[in-house]
């Protein structure tokens, strides 16, 4: 009776010791060499938690589609023409930074996968970047918008950044608005609102100087907290500000609420620009012809047949069209990986070099990275006849002309 507590205390130690022994045994068992029968590809992505929505839109369906396409092709092709099937190792990072770091450590150190696909989101890609670098894995960071990409490439030479930065998107918007002002379509006044979170802050910080530089006058500049659903006052203020251009750097729930409430309030700016969510396929479908004229980030070239074919295959496998911003780029980045393996084999060093310097034929068309960044991006898109078409950069092949002013809500 008296030693009961001590026994429990000792058993606690036993549990701790067993736990550490177990991890030891696990890491030792995996070291056994084996003949190569497959290519191991691993990824950790947010299947649950706060980031699950974004990951389920841009990342996971494209990983699935690519893996299905590779399997249908008989596996990944190597330089000698043989094909090896892909073995997938998949973890859920539960939208936690510590989990995503540990999952990548596990993929690299324990599963010893050949390649690791990146997680979803700017923060998480940065969280795992030092690990990819330490273990020598190329990191195809697609779903991260950052202006610091050139610095990151210097810091982590095997990192690749595909989605541009806030300055790119804000600059494109300012350029379009300035051109329309010059053409006399709209006045030079801009009303901006932005969500007080990573995306909104990045974009609005880039937009302020960009607007000024383009000769535009920001007459309203407000932020709102994440989760805001009532925009009545902000929209009223924007309407009375006299600005022809209304810009909202918003998240999906806010984007939908803004769309709804500007119809209710008959708020009809000549340029209506909304943030993340306005590029979702359901957005255009649900609004129907009312979506016409709305602008947002991203867009596609509808004359690019390969992209349109990709969209159909995406729908066939995942039951929904891909979003019109990051999805196709995610898929293209994976095609680049497969092509690099085909050209130089499984040596990660060589694959990284090929990704940096090679030219690839992807669903985007001919694709080449500059300083490890994809710069052929649609920075501004507009809904026209049920499609979100790319309008900026205007000089890029396949660009559509913006149709402004936007028609009033019916």
């Amino acid at each position, binding site marked *: 009776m008296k030693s009961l507590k001590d026994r429990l205390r000792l058993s606690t130690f036993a549990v701790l010791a067993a736990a550490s022994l177990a991890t030891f045994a696990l890491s030792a068992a995996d070291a056994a060499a084996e003949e190569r029968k497959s290519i191991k590809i691993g990824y950790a992505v947010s299947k649950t938690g706060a980031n699950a929505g974004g990951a389920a839109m841009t990342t996971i369906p494209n990983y699935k589609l690519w893996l299905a396409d590779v399997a249908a092709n008989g596996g990944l092709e190597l330089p000698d023409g043989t094909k090896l099937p892909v073995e997938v190792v998949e973890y*859920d990072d539960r939208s*936690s930074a510590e989990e995503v770091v540990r999952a990548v450590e596990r993929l690299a150190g324990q599963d010893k996968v050949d390649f690791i696909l990146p997680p979803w989101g700017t923060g998480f890609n*940065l969280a795992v970047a030092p690990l990819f670098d330490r273990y020598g894995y190329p990191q195809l960071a697609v779903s991260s918008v950052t202006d610091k990409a050139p610095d990151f490439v210097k810091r982590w030479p095997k990192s690749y950044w595909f989605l541009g930065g806030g300055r790119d998107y804000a600059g494109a918007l300012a350029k379009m608005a300035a051109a329309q002002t010059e053409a006399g379509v709209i006045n030079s006044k801009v009303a901006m609102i932005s969500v007080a979170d990573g995306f909104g802050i990045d974009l609005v910080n880039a937009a302020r100087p960009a607007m000024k530089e383009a000769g535009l006058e920001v007459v309203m500049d407000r932020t709102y907290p994440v989760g805001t659903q009532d925009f009545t006052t902000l929209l009223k203020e924007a309407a009375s500000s006299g600005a022809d251009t209304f810009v909202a750097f918003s998240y999906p729930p806010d984007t939908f609420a803004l769309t709804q409430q500007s119809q209710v309030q008959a708020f009809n700016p000549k340029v209506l620009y909304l943030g993340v969510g306005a590029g979702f396929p359901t957005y255009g479908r649900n609004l129907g012809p009312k979506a016409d004229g709305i602008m947002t980030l991203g867009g596609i070239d509808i004359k690019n047949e390969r992209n349109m074919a990709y969209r159909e295959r995406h729908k066939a496998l995942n039951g929904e069209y891909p979003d019109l911003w990051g999805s196709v780029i995610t898929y293209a980045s994976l095609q680049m990986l497969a092509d690099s393996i085909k050209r130089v084999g499984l040596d990660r060093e060589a694959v990284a070099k090929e990704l940096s310097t090679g030219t690839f034929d992807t669903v985007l068309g001919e694709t080449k990275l500059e300083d490890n960044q994809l710069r052929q991006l649609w920075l501004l898109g507009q809904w026209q006849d049920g499609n979100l078409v790319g309008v900026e950069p205007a000089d890029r092949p396949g660009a559509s002309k913006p149709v402004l002013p936007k028609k009033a809500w019916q």
Partner: protein
Amino acid sequence: MKTILGLAAAAIAFAGLAAAPLYLGTYGIGLMIGLIGYVTLASAWALFSGPTRFVSLATVAFFGIGAYTVSAFYESFPPLMVLGLAALIGLGVSLLVGLATLRLAGVYFVIFTFGLAELIRQLVTWYEVNITGTLGRYLFVSYGPEVVYWQLLVLCAVTFGIGYLIQRSRLGLALKMIGDDEVVAEHCGLPTARVKLALFALSSVIITLVGAIQAPRWTYIEPTIVFNPTISFLTLIMALLGGATRLWGPAVGAVPLFLLFEWLSANFPDHYSIILGLLFMAIVFVLPRGVLDFLEGLTARMKSERSRQAAGTAPEHGKGRLAEGEAK
């Protein structure tokens, strides 16, 4: 004698764990960081919430404060000083919050602490948006995960040391009394408010340090990352599973749960949430007072059964917490 044996066992365990990076791979170290991190969080949580039975959901508020302090000051001061600074800020906030709220009782305290995490997250966001103009902060450190692990391990050992000392001190007795009946404790002349405040501050400082130590693992710090409410809930459920009133209880809950989560997220990435929810319900229904309590109850019952058989009588035995006497 028993104390010396116990201390020796603890020292050996500590040395063994400290040597872990020598034989564990990177993933092993990462796993141990997560494990020791949650053991420390749950134990620190139980320091205050165990004896006083004030259920706090503010864990992530202090955890996030620690992480943010490091990201704000890691370039200006040496690492140990940054940790000290984080501890000071954690102490300041906890005293402020404690003074304002520890007179709240029961469910009101739970709600307040949950709100506190959100409040601090919004304050940090507001500050970053309006004053510094950026939201994410970059955190580039030169040291590897081993250093993070060792720092956590030391903190964990200190936490157990504090817990041990408190249990044997007059403070521990006072806390037990507050937990059993606060009104009676007050009538006996105990400065209940001050005792609770001291414990809350102590527990909060440790939690702040866990956040500060772990932050360099993530490279990029933003409010949604470091003020993730899941951390509060996991800490709570781990401490409750093991038994929040025992020194080793939180660790006994944290280790298996953490390993289970790891296994679930690898093997059932699509069903993780469902299994987790079922598990929580099971804990609440089957082991409401924790594993240690359950085991003690079980052994006690078996013993009384045996002695009854031996003596042929049925002695009346209190159920549950009979082995909890403090007499040593």
